[in-house]
């Protein structure tokens, strides 16, 4: 998170709501995430004008329109690259990317992994409903194998991505998972992600009531406690018979990755919370440092001297 001046009057959630009517389907999990974000943005101590939300294409990508900050609703899959440009250009901005499972993992998969490896200052909210909603119900790169959708009438034959494993594989510095229906957990994880310097990736399990209703139903309600493994630093974790204490700050991501693989095991609970949170130099800080170092070493560039560089010659008067 960037250090900026505190705003004079304290802001409230209302200050972050734009005048645009929210147009998601009734019951969509996106509402809960929007509420959570609007509720904790005032606590970040940032000026509204220093926050930028960037999105790609998909239902969740309408998110920036509903926040009274700077924002860009861009093109399919490209939000991380646009956010990279914004973050690299401006140290004083707090940059967010709002994306979905199709946007981030399918058409934009390349930009996502490269943003994660570079560690650009941005917080990525990956809304995962395991379906294409805006295009009306095709399977996504997180849909389970065998899923029957409009484009897979006899079942999907695609093997799905596990977004947390993918992010850990790309050596992301902050990786977490939360769920839309648990407001408290959602808010706590998003706030930690926002406070992290570097790329934070938060996968948010989110229900699509129209095209994939109940995708995460087993993880909700009073009986779901056993279905979730709520990661905390110091939590004892057992994977494949080996037990250790979960440490999100551990530099080697091997054990964090092992925890992420519990998803594939029907007998194991689904891990949520912060998998990884390590300090690593960010791309944009280093890019700015190179510019600052060049300036410090030799002063601001002299354009005339640049143009005059190399082998030059002068013609004193008209040569005929």
């Amino acid at each position, binding site marked *: 998170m960037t250090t900026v001046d505190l705003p004079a009057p304290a802001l409230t959630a209302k200050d972050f709501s*734009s005048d*645009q009517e929210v147009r998601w389907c009734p019951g969509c999990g996106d509402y809960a995430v929007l509420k959570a974000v609007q509720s904790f943005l005032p606590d970040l101590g940032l*000026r*509204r*004008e*220093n*926050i*930028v*939300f*960037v*999105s790609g294409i998909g239902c969740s990508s309408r998110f*920036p*329109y509903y926040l*009274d*900050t*700077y*924002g*860009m*609703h*861009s*093109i399919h899959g*490209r939000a*991380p*690259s*646009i*956010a*990279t*440009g*914004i*973050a*690299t*250009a*401006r140290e*004083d*901005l707090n940059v967010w990317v709002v994306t979905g499972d199709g946007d981030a993992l399918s058409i934009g998969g390349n*930009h996502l992994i490269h943003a994660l490896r570079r560690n650009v200052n941005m917080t990525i909210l990956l809304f995962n409903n395991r379906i294409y909603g805006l295009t009306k119900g095709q399977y996504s790169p997180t849909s389970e194998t065998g899923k029957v959708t409009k484009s897979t009438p006899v079942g999907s034959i695609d093997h799905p991505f596990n977004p947390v494993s993918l992010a850990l594989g790309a050596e992301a510095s902050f990786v977490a998972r939360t769920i839309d229906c648990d407001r408290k957990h959602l808010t706590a994880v998003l706030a930690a992600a926002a406070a992290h310097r570097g790329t934070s990736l938060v996968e948010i399990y989110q229900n699509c009531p129209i095209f994939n209703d109940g995708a995460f139903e087993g993880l909700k309600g009073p009986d779901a406690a056993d279905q979730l493994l709520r990661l905390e630093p110091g939590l004892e974790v057992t994977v494949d018979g080996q037990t250790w204490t979960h440490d999100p700050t551990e530099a080697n991501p091997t054990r964090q990755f092992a925890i992420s693989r519990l998803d594939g095991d029907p007998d194991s609970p689904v891990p949520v919370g912060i998998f990884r949170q390590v300090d690593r130099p960010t791309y944009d800080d280093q*890019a*700015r440092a*190179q*510019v600052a170092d*060049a300036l410090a070493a*030799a002063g*601001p*560039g002299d*354009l*005339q001297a*640049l*143009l*005059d*560089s*190399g*082998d*030059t*010659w*002068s*013609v*004193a008067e*008209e*040569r*005929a």
Partner: protein
Amino acid sequence: MSHPVTELDRVVIRFAGDSGDGMQLTGDRFTQEAAVFGNDLSTLPNFPAEIRAPQGTIPGVSSFQLHFASYDILTPGDRPDVLVAMNPAALKANTGDLPKGATVIVDTHDFTARNLTKVGYAANPLEDETLADFAVHAVDLTGMTVEAVKEFGLSRKDAARSKNMFALGLVSWLYGRDVAGTETYLAHKFATKPTIRDANVAALRAGWNFGETTETFAVSYVVKPAPAAPGRYRNITGNTALSYGLVAAGRLSGLPVLMGAYPITPASDILHELSKHKRFGVTTFQAEDEIAAIGAAVGASFAGTLGVTATSGPGVALKSEAMGLAVMTELPLVVVDVQRGGPSTGLPTKTEQSDLLQAMYGRNGEAPMPVIAPQSPGDCFAAAVEAARIAITYRTPVMLLSDGYLANGSEPWAIPSVADLPAIEPGFATAPNHSTTNAKGEPVEEFWPYLRDEETLARPWAIPGTAGLEHRIGGLEKGEGHGNISYDPANHDRMVRIRAEKVQRIADSLPPLEVDDPSGQADVLVIGWGSTYGPIGAACRRVRAAGHPIAQVHLRHVNPLPNDLGAILRRYDRVVCPEMNLGQLSRLLRAEYLVDVRPITTVRGLPFGAEALAHDLLTHVTRTAEALA
């Protein structure tokens, strides 16, 4: 001994060898010496896409052609007066371009039976009649180089690597050129490798002395300096000039520059050059792909920086959707396309002008973009500044169409005085621009991101960090003025027309076109755009020298077309348009003006030859005269 010296007014030299023989460096050094001497010049590097194609083969031949003269010249020359061939492949690949009487300097060292067979020579061409039309100097350049650098104890292979400097020394003697500049250059380049430095310098001097002391060359030549306007000059390639133009645009606008790029031939040198200029507030971002490169540039522009991306045709194809986003969000952006032969991967290292229609129309929807083209390597500087001026002033992505010939070719460049370059005003929005009332009827000041400047139709550029101007933009259609999403049919119709009109109004800011028609009697007008300026100009001179008037006009702005172009085209009985494509500008002009523009086209990966083009133009002039008679 003293040699007779013959004065010439122009010479075309072609250095040719294996890809690894250092021919580009040799040519570049001779160019620098000619430039500093005061000759006018024009160069044409020509090399394969493979880094090291199989040694000694024709596909592996790399060449560098230099035209230098005692008067102003416009092209790198059609046919070399002198060929320096470092092996049989280089000889075989280039002999066909030589005019009768040309001088051929051949390194005999590699003329073994095996090498001759490799390139299809049945017999040694140095020993039969193959080269009978030329003045051949067959010399063991490699052997003499090895001998000359013996004292440095290099391996035979390393010693032989200096043979290009021996050749350079020899040719420098032949044309009375000083090699001191090259010695300084070598001292700098090999500062950490003193032995290699000394060997290269020794080879260079040995080459010079060989010319001086042997009877091989009966005469040497002098080509006097060319007339030039007073001022300071340097030799510059198009890619360097274009990079400097982008640096200058940042300085003139007071904006930092963020350049996103993905390596691609022949545009990568722009990324390399800009990466050196951090002190000018230039940040370069080598992205994971072409799309991310332009994405970062669009993001940087949104954040108040001058966003730039540079690529070649295949990269432009990948960037199309993001260019559409920049059209819709009306953000400043400079997209550089250094065109190469296409389609697909095409001819990566060869030149072509076949991306014009892609630049004009290669996006979904009605997505107009200004298109600007430099006309010579040095002109890439001014064209880049102009592209930035339009991008910033009109809040629009701009396509800057260079090409492989401009990118790698070079010419003397009159260095502009920075103090004379006009400032570019970013004019960031700082305050609300619209008054309304809230639900309670109280007056409220708002920011509307799509309220426009009445004259330019540019929208306000409010950058993050500006309190009270928070707003959202994106790829969905905008409501006029307020900029909120709108699917209203009438609004879309209006916004499409406004975006088109905004680009059209750029024409109001352009200077009048200059038609070159010295006699004022021409019936035929030749029109071109981009790098064909030199060949068209040289061809027109030949036509005029043959006693026929002909007029030339050249376009820097292809979109929007200048306001006075229609009237100019209609003044002539015939309009001819030479292009390195199958007639893309001529189609645009026909569609726009209903004028019967006649294309002359070439797609050989090389610039037009002045002689052949002059022949075609003369045919048009003759036919027009016949029709008028």
